[in-house]
């Protein structure tokens, strides 16, 4: 308890218990908290600090920063990288590249133990790799973009508008909706060769575009984003053909020209758009004010397109092809297995949609089996994470700007039980994007604007604590901090938080932070537990820029951390780090106390001695105690303990202060056992005979 100034006994400010973890304030926190620690275990045995195992780099032969890692039943692990590389991590942690996706990776990967396939989304499609443990062991097949483009077979595109029934119940342009494969199965229409035209009439293409009468073909799509429109060309004539896609306001969305030499008469000819065309789907439809329409013109008015009605372009035979996945601004298609319907579903974040695949046909799923638009979210939202909580799939969405200097501040958590056509409920997250959503102990955690949040029922989310910053005042830079979808994991009953993936905030240290308690009697606490093997924690360290952590994934005692950075020579380096039971102690560690002022900051005190008590000092370590007076420069001890020592004592001189803080830094090299610190003590002379209130300059 408090002591009066007249008490001449020297104070011993003693840190012997550490279960409070890192405090957010430099002076005050829960009992037995401290200001900072790195790579130290303060939780397993709360009465001591011990050096945690350090990460070691197991691979630098990557061309990617891994953003998702899964394991097959034989223990082989697979990762997908941000640049689209697919890697195999064998049981000896030897990493080899096994495939390249058609585009960048999308932070999603799922292993189905029954089909023995790994499902890997890229930017616009899904590829398969397998069988990985059965079939032809050691030689799985990579099937690139198996779930690629497919054609709409919905009435809004496949059939003509029927003005009598006010529905798309007119004649079918072709047999796409009923086409079956050789064994009678209705598979996805991925090629025009699967379709037979119903066109018996023709429409002669004009040379100029007009928005009138029967001069264009309108439709109401059920899928997006558009990949192409394939038109049945009856006779190509002699001119070059141009297809222009318009919305209902006649805004031009795309224009594609195919030269006459590349056209084929009596066949479908595909007009492939240069990039994905985003669209609204299943919109309310009223006949000839279709949500979208396209025109066809030719440089010579002698080409004809197949139609159902003579000289009627609205009845043209065409197929609308769409990508399976949306190219998102955030570049992500997170994956999760979910069976809320009672049936297995692979759920894939798909921009403002949730896509689901029911494992119905790995070769050529139709649009019902691979449902691009099982759920829809608000325009502009993009899924940034998936997890599960009780019977719900939790879908985190953000809005991602294409300008890193002008970020949105919007996010939503959607909850879906799998049985409805819209989410069961949602919780807006106006604080920002809910990143890294992950459920641990049935509490869903996520990172928003520098803080850790949690939800486990109820109407509101709970702000657990500051992760890195409460605000970015005076940063003198635009903060853009992103956490990838697979950055949170659990290890030894603790929540591990890889933070951040990328940031422009120079005040944030990259690494893996931990949250939790050793058992219920001790508090949940927070600390920096694992740095990258290189111990690079910030940009601009040794000229390093663009530091990124791709994902953090734990398998029992194996913790993987993937990373990339651009070195001083401008070369981008990629690697994979691992912490496991064969790891040696972290090569660098540190700890710092709260600032002590005796709750009488106005009064001068004197620090006299500083002692760190530890178990027999192991070989391979250095330990440098230091103290800081009045927030000045650290004063380090001149020596480090010798092997077998059990303490180190440091004189504090000159020791007059209003505030004092102490700590230590350490290194290890070749050490095999952890350094265990059992007490940290600062001795204070309260100097009760001095006048308390004096000018600081008089002290």
């Amino acid at each position, binding site marked *: 308890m408090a002591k009066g100034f007249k008490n001449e006994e020297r104070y011993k400010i003693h840190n012997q218990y550490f279960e409070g973890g890192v405090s957010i304030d430099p002076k*005050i926190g829960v009992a037995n908290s401290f200001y900072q620690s790195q790579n130290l275990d303060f939780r397993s045995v709360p009465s001591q600090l011990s050096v945690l195992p350090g990460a070691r780099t197991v691979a630098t032969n990557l061309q990617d920063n891994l953003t998702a890692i899964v394991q097959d039943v034989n223990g082989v692990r697979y990762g997908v990288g941000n640049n689209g590389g697919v890697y195999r991590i064998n049981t000896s942690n030897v990493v080899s590249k096994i495939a390249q996706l058609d585009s960048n990776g999308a932070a999603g990967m799922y292993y189905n133990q029954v089909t023995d396939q790994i499902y890997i989304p890229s930017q616009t499609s899904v590829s398969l790799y397998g069988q990985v443990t059965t079939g032809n062991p050691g030689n799985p097949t990579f099937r690139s973009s198996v779930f690629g483009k497919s054609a709409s077979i919905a009435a809004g595109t496949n059939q003509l508008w029927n003005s009598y029934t006010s529905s798309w119940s007119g004649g079918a342009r072709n047999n796409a909706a009923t086409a079956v494969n050789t064994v009678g199965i209705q598979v996805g229409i991925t090629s025009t060769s699967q379709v037979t035209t119903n066109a018996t009439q023709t429409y002669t293409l004009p040379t100029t575009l007009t928005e009138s009468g029967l001069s264009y073909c309108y439709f109401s799509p059920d899928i997006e984003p558009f990949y192409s429109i394939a038109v049945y060309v009856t006779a190509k004539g002699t001119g070059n053909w141009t297809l222009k896609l318009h919305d209902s306001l006649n805004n031009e969305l795309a224009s594609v020209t195919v030269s006459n030499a590349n056209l084929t008469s009596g066949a479908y000819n595909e007009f492939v758009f240069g990039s994905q065309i985003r669209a609204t789907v299943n919109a309310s439809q009223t006949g000839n004010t279709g949500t979208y329409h396209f025109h066809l013109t030719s440089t010579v008015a002698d080409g004809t397109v197949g139609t159902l009605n003579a000289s009627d372009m609205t009845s043209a035979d065409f197929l609308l092809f769409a990508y399976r996945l949306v190219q998102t601004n955030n570049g992500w298609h997170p994956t999760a297995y979910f069976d809320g319907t009672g049936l297995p579903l692979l759920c894939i974040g798909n921009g403002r949609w949730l896509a689901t695949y029911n494992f119905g046909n790995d070769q050529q799923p139709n649009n019902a089996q691979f449902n691009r638009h099982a759920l829809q979210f608000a325009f502009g939202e993009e899924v940034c994470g998936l997890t599960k909580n009780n019977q719900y799939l939790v879908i985190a969405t953000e809005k991602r700007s294409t300008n890193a200097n002008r970020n949105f501040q919007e996010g939503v958590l959607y909850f879906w039980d799998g049985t409805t056509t819209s989410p069961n409920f949602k919780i807006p997250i106006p604080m920002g994007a809910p990143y890294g959503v992950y459920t641990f102990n049935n509490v869903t955690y996520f990172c928003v604007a520098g803080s850790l949040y949690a939800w486990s029922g109820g109407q509101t989310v709970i702000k657990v604590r500051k992760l890195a910053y409460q605000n970015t005042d005076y940063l003198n830079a635009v903060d853009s901090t992103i956490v990838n979808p697979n950055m949170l994991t659990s290890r030894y009953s603790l929540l591990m938080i890889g933070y951040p993936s990328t940031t422009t905030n120079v005040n944030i240290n990259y690494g893996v932070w931990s949250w939790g308690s050793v058992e219920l009697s001790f508090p949940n606490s927070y600390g920096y537990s694992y740095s990258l093997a290189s111990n690079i924690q910030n940009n601009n360290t040794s000229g390093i820029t663009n530091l990124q952590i791709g994902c953090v994934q734990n398998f029992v005692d194996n913790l993987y951390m993937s990373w990339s950075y651009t070195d001083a020579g401008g070369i981008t380096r990629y690697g994979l780090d691992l912490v496991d039971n064969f790891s040696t102690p972290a090569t660098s560690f540190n700890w710092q106390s709260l600032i002590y002022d005796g709750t009488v900051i106005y009064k001068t005190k004197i620090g006299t001695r500083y002692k760190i008590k530890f178990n027999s000092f192991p070989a391979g370590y250095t330990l440098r105690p230091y103290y800081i007076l009045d927030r000045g420069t650290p004063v380090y001890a001149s020596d480090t303990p010798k092997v077998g020592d059990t303490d180190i004592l440091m004189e504090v001189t000159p020791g007059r202060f209003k505030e004092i803080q102490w700590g230590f830094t350490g290194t290890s090299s070749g050490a095999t056992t952890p350094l265990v610190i059992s007490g940290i003590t600062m001795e204070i002379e309260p100097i009760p005979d001095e006048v308390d209130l004096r000018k600081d300059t008089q002290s």
Partner: protein
Amino acid sequence: MSTSDATFKNAPNASLMFTMYSTTFGNGAFELLPPATGNMEDGFPSIPYLSLEAIIYQQQSSNPLSSPNQTIAGVSAGQQMIGSSQVAQDSTTTPRYYVGTQTTG
């Protein structure tokens, strides 16, 4: 800080269940730090520990989320078909009042 003081400040969080906390208004039971007494402390000041689990438990019990609308437990998928019609006729069997889908005439 004496042991009894520490125990008091870190009272079992079950008791915090019964104090004021809401995620809207925060911790109403938070111990405000009094002005310094002028006595010099021989340790660090501390604040009460508030367990996340206690908050979650309290929130779930006092602020529950509405359940999805389900009239039959476990079943929320299905459809209701209305395909019939009702016709009121006068003494000459001429339809005078029609409810439903008129398919003829």
